[in-house]
């Protein structure tokens, strides 16, 4: 008879889990989960390494760099205006602010001022851009929390604003509208009614979103008290913009160091209290209302009145024929020929040119009518475009800060006296909040990472340049 050894009684869990001892509570391990660069969040590419104890985040680390495109190195390669398309792609949801910020930094280096009308135009276009940024941010955050309708509404409102931007600049997103010394072209004649109708739609959408989100139990539960960062830490992390204002610090570059026409306009700085995601959402919603208020005031005070680019009843030439005649040397009468230009080129005519560009010949390209119609204009154009010539600020450096949608967007430009910038540095407003992201999510649940990351509004183009 074979002796069967005595089998010790095993607990039920051990039996089902197989060999080995059942782990005691003190001997559990934390799980390392990687919210990798390819993730469903609509904000940007980022990798968040989390160490999880169940659902709670014990430690987190953020890795960026998945969209580094060498912006600063590219700016050094070409003349000053060549940097414009690169600046569009920095914060690509509010590209006009980046354009104008860079132009203002170079203008500061040159020591020139832009015309008053140009200042108002820059204010108007920047505020419209700020509204599109906040719409995208809140829309994407809401979608990640499950409110897909809000996203559709916000993007619908954004489309109306993009149509307005397209009328002015010619493009929806990557507009390259700013130029050192001014803007590419003046506002089209029917700008004001277009803006008013776009704002009507935007206000309707914002009302609907308020009804859907602001008192919504689920939204409030997921956002209130989540992602809190204390006031001292926010300042120590150099966080500016809506995140700092949600902590109760009323710092806004438009008020602290006014630029363009902001000192002549009346607006409020919405400020929160708790520094959590819900307050950041409320601050952004209030800022959109304030931006619309600023644009309406600026439109009312726009100096120079409506720019008259109507053609008189003479036989018209298309711009292509005009250019060909000029190149062939048939220049008599060319200066007086009226043209019918496409709506977004109309603002580049001679009459409009002076109203938005600084009167500095060494910096601003002459209007096309002068370039093709007179030898002085041609020489001026040539001197600004050819390599080695062009905009040549004196040796030195300048830092200019504008209020981007995420906070202080600073451009630090170093010039060596040639026509290429020696160094262009963009101070990205969303780098500090992303650096503070581990601080904000440590101790909270995995599901809280999503709204916190959404309210940081990390735009990878700006973060990693």
């Amino acid at each position, binding site marked *: 008879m074979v002796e069967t050894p005595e089998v010790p009684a095993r607990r039920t869990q051990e039996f089902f889990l197989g060999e080995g001892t059942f782990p005691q509570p003190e001997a559990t391990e934390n799980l390392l989960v990687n919210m990798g660069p390819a993730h469903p969040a609509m904000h940007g590419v980022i990798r968040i390494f989390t160490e999880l104890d169940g659902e709670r985040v014990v430690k987190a680390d953020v890795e*960026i760099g998945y969209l580094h495109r060498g912006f600063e190195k590219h700016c050094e390669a070409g003349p000053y205006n060549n940097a414009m398309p690169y600046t569009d792609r920095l914060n690509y949801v509010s590209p006009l602010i980046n354009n104008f910020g860079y132009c203002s930094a170079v203008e500061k280096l040159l020591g020139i001022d832009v015309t008053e009308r140009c200042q108002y135009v820059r204010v108007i276009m920047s505020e419209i851009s700020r509204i599109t940024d906040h719409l995208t941010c809140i829309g994407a955050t809401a979608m990640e929390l499950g409110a897909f309708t809000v996203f559709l509404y916000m993007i619908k409102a954004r489309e109306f604003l993009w149509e307005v931007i397209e009328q002015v600049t010619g493009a929806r997103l990557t507009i390259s509208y700013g130029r050192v010394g001014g803007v590419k072209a003046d506002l089209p004649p029917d700008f004001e009614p277009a803006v008013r109708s776009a704002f009507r739609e935007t206000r309707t959408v914002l009302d609907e979103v308020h009804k859907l989100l602001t008192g919504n139990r689920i939204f409030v539960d997921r956002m209130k008290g989540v992602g809190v960062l204390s006031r001292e830490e926010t300042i120590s992390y150099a966080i500016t913009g809506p995140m700092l204002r949600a902590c109760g610090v009323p710092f806004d570059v438009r008020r602290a160091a006014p630029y363009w026409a902001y000192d002549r306009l009346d607006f409020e700085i919405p400020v929160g209290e708790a520094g959590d995601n819900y307050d950041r959402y409320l601050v952004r919603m209030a800022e959109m209302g304030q931006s619309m208020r600023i644009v309406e005031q600026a439109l009312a005070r726009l100096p120079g009145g409506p720019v008259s680019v109507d053609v008189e009843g003479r036989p018209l030439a298309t711009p292509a024929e005009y250019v060909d005649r000029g190149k062939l040397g048939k220049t008599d009468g060319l200066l007086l020929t009226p043209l019918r230009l496409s709506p977004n080129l109309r603002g580049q005519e001679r009459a409009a040119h002076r109203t938005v560009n600084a009167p500095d010949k060494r910096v601003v390209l002459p209007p096309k009518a002068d370039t093709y119609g007179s030898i002085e204009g041609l020489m001026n154009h040539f001197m600004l475009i050819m390599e080695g010539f062009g905009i040549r600020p004196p040796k030195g450096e300048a830092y200019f800060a504008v209020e981007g949608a995420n906070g202080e967007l600073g451009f630090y430009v170093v010039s060596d006296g040639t026509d290429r910038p020696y160094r262009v540095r963009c101070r990205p407003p969303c780098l500090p909040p992303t650096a503070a992201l581990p601080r904000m999510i440590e101790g909270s649940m995995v599901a809280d990472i999503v709204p916190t990351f959404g309210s940081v509004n990390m735009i990878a183009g700006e973060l990693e340049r």
Partner: protein
Amino acid sequence: MDGHAILARLRERFGPAILETGDHRGDHTAVVDRARLAELLRFCRDDAALRFDMLMDLTAVDYLKFPGRDAGARFEVVYHLYSVTEGHRVRIKVPVEEDDPVVPSAVPLWAIANWYEREVWDMFGIRFDGHPDLRRLLLYEEFVGHPLRKDYAINRRQPLIGPRN
């Protein structure tokens, strides 16, 4: 506080360590000797009159190809400081030699210096003494070189890296 008053206060406290001051285009700047940089930054943050509680930006400039600066240090690390309470700004610059590119870290003073210094290390190769975790920020570890240096060509190709966990 007025910019001139800020620079005067720094000069009064640090004397010969302030190599140069200036206010080109209204930006008040002080060029500081590296030896007393850590002390100066702490003074800027803690002094009751200055109260620079925000390190707005930390970057560097490579002066290798700058016309007329052949004699000086190759790099300059630039700090832009801002005070939320007072509302004033200052720029602090520190010249750094090419053969000894080390600067004391500002991480004990401002939390954001952690990432700003990692970026400067990544792009320029300037080390920060006292930084807890100095690794690349924007580029991957296998990357060779420091791209924003002037002797790095913009279209230099790097080998593609394979998938990794």
